[in-house]
């Protein structure tokens, strides 16, 4: 008997294939596309999106949705920039920002669980709240001038590969977060509870899963990872801006879906989200290399891919009833 791919793995396999094909096409079409620098930048430039998308994936796996991602990332950036500007040491500012992000997620999770409110509306409120509060902290873009940022993060913590090339710390963050999240989703009680909750809340309750704890924890984790995405973004941009990252939540959700996670919850893989983020990154890089195409083609391409993957999931789910 031939070993067959389970329908849950097929979307991930397809998206991995799409990533490889896009990358190979890029390498064949443009001479410098295959250089290690492009590959490293692919990770480094999309690190903040990847970190935030991992949080969004957990929420989606648990059957919820988080619309506050972009606003929390922007808030974190301006919060850190403002604290550092007031003379706080950067590590303290980063720690505070992570606590605030996790607390924000816990607040939304509590509202969703305790009052049985739709996650869509609560996180929509959270999005407006975080976006507005960012402007309360500081109304304009603010650059971060601290030796910690320019020396420690940009130079000491980056891994040199050759004299002219080094792996930025942001890329390291992304890989670390994805690795830890994969372990957490697959081999911990919390991870199994998240999958159970997303598959069927009532069954999960009957199995003895602590629904409330899991739900609140998932949104706390998502808030924390959004804030961490914001921290990574400050490493990358060396500044904070309350008006930035509008619509990042859509990219995070798109990356999650393209990475093979079902939006109705319960099915999906964390590494798939990394693949999804890299696909978005490769499309962007391809369009930059091409030069003649405008940036709006990125959005159309992402929308098209989203359509293909949703259709694929729909077909797989329908062909095998009961597997969800």
């Amino acid at each position, binding site marked *: 008997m031939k070993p067959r791919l389970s329908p849950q793995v097929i979307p991930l396999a397809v998206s991995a294939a799409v990533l490889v094909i896009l990358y190979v096409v890029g390498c064949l079409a443009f001479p410098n596309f295959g250089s290690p620098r492009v590959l490293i930048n692919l990770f480094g430039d999309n690190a903040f999106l990847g970190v935030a998308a991992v949080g969004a994936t957990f929420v989606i796996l648990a059957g919820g949705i988080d619309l506050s991602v972009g606003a929390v990332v922007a808030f974190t950036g301006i919060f850190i920039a403002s604290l550092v500007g007031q003379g706080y040491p950067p590590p303290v500012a980063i720690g505070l920002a992570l606590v605030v992000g996790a607390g924000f997620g816990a607040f939304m999770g509590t509202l969703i669980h305790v*009052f049985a*409110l739709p996650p869509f509306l609560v996180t929509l409120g959270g999005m407006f709240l975080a976006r*507005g509060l960012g402007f309360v902290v500081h109304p304009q873009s603010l650059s971060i001038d601290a030796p910690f940022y320019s020396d420690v993060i940009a130079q000491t913590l980056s891994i040199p590969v050759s004299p002219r090339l080094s792996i930025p710390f942001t890329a390291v963050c992304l890989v670390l977060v994805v690795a830890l999240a994969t372990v957490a989703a697959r081999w911990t009680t919390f991870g199994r509870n998240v999958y159970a909750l997303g598959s069927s809340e009532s069954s999960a309750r009957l199995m003895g899963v602590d629904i409330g704890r899991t739900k609140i924890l998932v949104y706390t984790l998502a808030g924390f990872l959004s804030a961490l995405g914001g921290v990574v973004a400050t490493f990358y941009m060396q500044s904070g801006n309350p008006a930035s990252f509008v619509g990042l939540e859509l990219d995070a959700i798109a990356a999650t879906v393209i990475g093979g996670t079902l939006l109705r919850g319960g099915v999906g893989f964390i590494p798939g989200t990394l693949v999804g983020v890299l696909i978005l990154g490769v499309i962007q890089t391809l369009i930059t290399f091409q030069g003649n195409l405008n940036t709006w083609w990125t959005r159309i391409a992402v929308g098209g891919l989203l359509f293909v993957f949703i259709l694929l999931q729909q077909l797989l789910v329908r062909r095998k009833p009961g597997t969800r």
Partner: protein
Amino acid sequence: MNAWFDPLFWAAFAAGLFFTRRERIFWPLLALGLLLLFNQLFTPGFFDLEVRNGQLYGTRVDILNQGAKVMLLALGMTLVIATAGVDLSVGAIMAIAGAVAAQAVTAAALPAPVAIAAGLAVAGLAGVWNGVLVAVLRIQPIVATLILMVAGRGVAQLITGGQIVNFTDPTLSFLGNGYVFGLPFTVFLVAGMFGATAWLTRRTALGLFIESVGDNETASTFTGLPAQRVKFLAYVFAGLCAGLAGLVAAANIRSADANNAGLYLELDAILAVVVGGTALTGGRFTLAGSMIGALLIQTLTTTLYARNVSADIAPVPKALVILAVCLLQSPVLRAKLAALGKGRKAA
């Protein structure tokens, strides 16, 4: 004219509250009344009305005019939400419709009625796309409409060539800036659309079909209702409403801005519907409630501006209103409050 108009306005409002005291729209109407009362007492100039060149000007007229876009969107969104769906793409559809109409009167030099028809036709097509995804391919509505939400602005930019397209056509800009009988044209446009939608849903069985499908799709199908066709039509209608709103938005500023036209308005529209008393879970809906919800949101925004709150910080009070309304509608909180009330009585 404030001296005699204000008492008349408040008498009419009070009468409205009295007649709706047992309806679902009582609470949003009361919230709107309280917000207006706050402005009457504490915001100088908010209630000023004046007639210039036979046209009525004042903050309340501005609220009606500015709120027109969300009110139009909320009409379509109400029906979609009533079928237990949601349409995230209406903001992007607005941008597309505005882009098509603007390009039609400028680059293609077509007459305005043709441009308006073209904008509406493309918006209707976008609605058909959403409808096919939801009703034929049975993709869950949030996901299905997310596709157009992501790609739609790209399409709009493709149409405008990435530029902001300015136009001077008087007929097209009349849609957003014109006055008829001393009132903004948008007021009549919204009233007409509201009347037509209310008539279609309440004087025919269509409204009942929509509520039935939203309440229990399987049961509706077994009763012989064309459930998928009802859903499909709801998305097409939402697309057309979004197209109309997009034309008004473009006409307002006499230009099509693919990046910013209708940005986040899908969220305002959903909020207006929910504030108005239609639950996101589908089933029963109230069009009048959605209109009041849209007016409440616009009045809140206008109040913040009138009180010199920066446009950037305005989302904060808006968020607090969303959360407060969600909490008030939460069955869990209501049960807890009811239990609290009973406990007091017993003690």
